[in-house]
């Protein structure tokens, strides 16, 4: 851990040197803030131009704040793609980074901290200019600090991981990586509806693409809020500027953002796989390659604990009613109890073979997730306090933490599948 922190610090320091070494500090500060500030000022100019004639002026503040926060997305997601281009094509140092002990991911993570810092400065400055110079005032008493902090934190993690994905794609697509970065930047700006309601996009395919990207990048904000074109990170102005969204909806958006974060983590794993695939291209597979990806012994014990708890909490609740129930059961309810009974029994095997039985945990994770999304979410106001919801939510969180996702990814997606034809031995 200490070594990782040291490598991360070195990468961050190197990133700062690269970002800032071409100019004196004053010029660099101007450079760092000029673009995002000018983007904000363009919006302000547009607003000034129509101030006397616009009919939905109250929306402008929401768009302004969204535009300020958008710099995080630009810096983290697109910035990571540019980083690969710079290292490979401008400085030609990518090969040295690649072969150095620091490791590609640590290096990218360290560089992303600098970009995050610059984005924070830019966003803060844009908000400050809006507040002080332009008179864009929001009501601090309506700020939902909890959801805002959680959404921002999850959004930043998701942004970094999506940046890994863009960097991974940039590594594999050298000839088009510049175009890809430029396209992504404007596509994110347009299709995320940063400065306009997303439903103003022309009909399909534009709206379809917009919705897909919107979901990918920002998570699914509560539908009414999304229709008004608000940004996910706009917890602070949502009620003030756009007419009010209740607390459940705000937390709900955080929950969706968590989903984006999980998906983005998968993206990071996939970009890692690309890098590994590139590294191993042309070489025979080495013996013991998988050993490096096997979970830590501590995780195996945590998995065993989860299997055990599954059995202890589930079996006493489902087996007795199955054996001793009176009269005929509703068949669908019977399916649910039979499923839980099978699950609890298979969990016993998991205690002995935690990795081999990981599909059981995956099954548990997926069915609980489906239940939360398909059953609980549509009636969230009534279901949020239900004990079953808490159980399902807790189960999903526990599964997310305990399941060895890298192992799952490598085993079920990267390794060759089982044969589809008769082998010579079988014949």
């Amino acid at each position: 851990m200490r070594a990782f922190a040291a490598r991360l610090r070195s990468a961050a320091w190197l990133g700062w040197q690269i970002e800032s070494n071409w100019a004196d500090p004053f010029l660099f500060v101007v450079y760092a803030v000029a673009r995002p500030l000018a983007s904000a000022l363009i919006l302000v100019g547009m607003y000034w131009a129509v101030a006397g004639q616009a009919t939905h002026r109250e929306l402008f503040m929401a768009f302004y704040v969204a535009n300020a926060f958008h710099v995080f997305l630009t810096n983290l997601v697109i910035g990571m793609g540019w980083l690969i281009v710079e290292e490979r094509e401008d400085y030609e140092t990518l090969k040295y980074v690649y072969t150095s002990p620091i490791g590609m991911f640590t290096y990218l993570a360290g560089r992303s901290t600098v970009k995050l810092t610059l984005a924070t400065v830019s966003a803060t400055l844009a908000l400050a200019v809006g507040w002080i110079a332009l008179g864009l005032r929001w009501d601090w008493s309506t700020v939902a600090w909890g959801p805002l902090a959680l959404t921002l934190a999850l959004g930043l993690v998701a942004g970094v991981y999506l940046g890994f994905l863009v960097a991974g794609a940039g590594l594999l697509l050298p000839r088009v990586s510049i175009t890809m970065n430029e396209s992504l930047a404007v596509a994110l700006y347009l299709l995320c509806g940063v400065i306009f309601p997303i439903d103003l996009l022309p009909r399909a395919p534009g709206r379809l693409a917009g919705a897909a990207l919107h979901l990918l990048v920002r998570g699914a904000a509560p539908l009414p809020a999304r229709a008004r074109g608000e940004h996910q990170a706009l917890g602070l102005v949502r009620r003030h500027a756009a007419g009010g969204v209740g607390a459940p909806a705000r937390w709900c958006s955080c929950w969706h953002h968590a989903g984006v974060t999980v998906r983005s983590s998968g993206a990071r794993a996939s970009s890692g796989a690309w890098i590994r695939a590139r590294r191993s291209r042309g070489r025979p597979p080495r013996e013991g390659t998988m050993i490096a990806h096997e979970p830590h012994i501590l995780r195996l014990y945590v998995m065993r604990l989860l299997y055990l708890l599954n059995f202890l909490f589930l079996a006493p609740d489902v087996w007795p009613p199955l054996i001793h129930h009176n009269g005929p059961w509703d068949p669908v309810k019977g399916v649910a109890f039979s499923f839980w009974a099978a699950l609890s029994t298979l969990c016993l095997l998991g205690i002995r073979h935690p990795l081999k039985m990981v599909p059981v945990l995956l099954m548990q994770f997926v069915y609980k997730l489906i239940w939360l999304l398909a059953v609980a979410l549509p009636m969230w106001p009534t279901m949020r306090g239900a004990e079953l919801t808490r159980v399902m939510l807790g189960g999903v969180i526990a599964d997310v933490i305990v399941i060895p996702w890298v192992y799952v990814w490598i085993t079920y997606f990267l390794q060759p599948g089982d044969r589809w034809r008769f082998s010579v031995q079988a014949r």
Partner: protein
Amino acid sequence: MLPAVGMSAFVLLYRALGAPKSFEAVAVLGGILSFYWINVLWGMGAQLYWEKQQGQLALYFAAPCSRMSILTGMALGGALMTTLRTLFGIAVGFGVLGVRVPHFHLGALLLVFAAGLLALYALGMTLASVFLLYGREAWHVSNALQEPVYFVSGLYFPLRTLGAFGWAMAGIVPLGFGLDAMRQVVLGSAAHGLLPVPIETAILFGLGLFFLMTARFALDYLERLAKREGRLTQRWQ
């Protein structure tokens, strides 16, 4: 395609704010001109710098023709190709987004457009030398100035909105006057123009001649420097 995407966002912002329809046309015209500005900045200004980075700049200086003729050819080719690209922006603005403009005088539009292009590409020829002289610094500064130039040129809103500041900045970057003149020809009084069109056109021609002379001077200086120091054509210099 990319500037058209950004342009669409600004058109939709006007639509979201409930602004008069003429402002959508203001944004579309700005988006179309942004194609040219990007070409001037990166296709013209950065061209020699890129050639240097790729190690081919020496061939330019060794070529049996003047650098000015090379840059002029680049400008004409860049303008032609960019005009083809703007067709996409026109299709997006007036086709996909459904922005409409009143009838206008095509000849007047072509005249102010030509004046604007002359001034813009002459500036691009000057920038080519500046990029080459100052290398990375010029690259970064130009990169940093992209959005600020959009702002001070009133790319997506009438330049008059910026008041005296707009007047001052329009004289520096010809994009502002060119755009303002085109908007006035197309939209009339709804463009909220800065100066009468004939005056703006005259200023644009004047700026074009001024930047052409500047470019000539800068290229001569650059050539002398290259011959004297022999380092301008080397990478990382």
